[in-house]
């Protein structure tokens, strides 16, 4: 009992003495064992390579696609830096990758997302280099793929286009956090309740906080999409995938 109290005190002191070390949502530096860090890096690498090839094509393309790519990239930069308060009393941030996934397909957003994650890992001690692969997988691979599939699927139906974009971006955002929670619970299984117990705990931290933020991300993505649709209809910009 005494030992437990002592441990609690140490943990509390540690938490108090390292304020602001980590905010929001990515897996923190050093918090995945080496084999998992390597595993996620290897899983993420092919997507990054395919994305780089696709981006090369975009750059050889007309000015029009480059402009749109800049817009999608800027959107990720802004949204992933906005730490927004949620109903759970903690903060997290949107990802912003949904817009680009809809416009360019998921793998290009793997590249953009990796750049942002690197920026945050190197300059902000947010996320980390050892956990980069895992964070890329959740935010820059699964998130965009989910958004892309939902958009493609609903596009053919009668559902309102802006609403389709809203749902695609919001669910893609939630998917990112479900993946993060899963990645953590595979490594840190609860000694009593096991994998599912851990998953419930991590999901309650990430996913519940994330629901209002997913809605925010969906709405902001729909706003930009609406603008693009209007400019597209007036013929000043040519968006193929709209």
């Amino acid at each position, binding site marked *: 009992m005494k030992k437990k109290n002592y*441990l609690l005190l140490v*943990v509390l002191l540690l*938490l108090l003495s390292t304020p*602001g*070390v*980590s*905010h*929001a*949502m*990515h*897996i*923190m*530096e*050093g*918090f995945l*064992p*080496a084999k998992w860090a390597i595993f996620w890096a290897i899983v993420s690498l092919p997507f990054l390579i395919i994305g780089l090839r696709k981006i090369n094509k975009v750059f050889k393309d007309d000015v029009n696609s480059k*402009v749109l790519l*800049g817009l999608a990239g*800027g959107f990720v*930069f*802004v*949204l*992933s*830096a906005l*730490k927004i*308060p*949620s*109903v759970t*009393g*903690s*903060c*997290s941030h949107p990802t912003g990758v949904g817009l680009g996934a809809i416009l360019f397909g998921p793998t290009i957003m793997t590249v953009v997302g990796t750049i*942002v994650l690197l920026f945050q890992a*190197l*300059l*902000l*001690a947010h996320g*980390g*280099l*050892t956990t980069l692969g895992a964070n890329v997988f959740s935010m820059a691979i699964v998130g965009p793929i989910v958004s892309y599939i939902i958009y493609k699927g609903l596009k053919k139906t009668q559902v309102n286009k*802006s609403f389709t974009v809203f749902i695609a971006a919001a669910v893609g955002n939630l998917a990112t956090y479900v993946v993060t929670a899963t990645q*953590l619970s595979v490594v*840190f299984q609860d000694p009593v309740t096991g994998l599912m117990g851990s998953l419930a705990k*991590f999901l309650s*931290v*990430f996913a519940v906080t994330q629901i*209002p933020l997913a809605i*925010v991300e969906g*709405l*902001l993505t729909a706003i*930009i999409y*609406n*603008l693009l649709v*209007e*400019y597209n209809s*007036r*013929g*000043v*910009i040519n968006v193929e995938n709209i």
Partner: protein
Amino acid sequence: MLKTSKINLILFLVVIGIILVPLIFMGDSEFGGADGEAEGVILEIAPDYEPWAEPIWEPPSGEIESLLFSTQVAIGAGTIGYIIGMIREKKKIASNR
């Protein structure tokens, strides 16, 4: 059919509303980061776990951190503003022709 700008304004107001609700109704919460809380869960499940890597560099203070975060936003918002502005100008020039 509502105009795009009107729809977008409404959507934007909803965004502001969603952000303000927790601030107004849960003013006494800490609003710390969700990944800090995840760290707490990790320490609860595996108290012996030692992070085996440290961030290479950490912002020396909250101020510097917010400087860097706002720099990130500035880069992104600047890009978006420039591009949307460019598209709008193109529209004007096209319609004046």
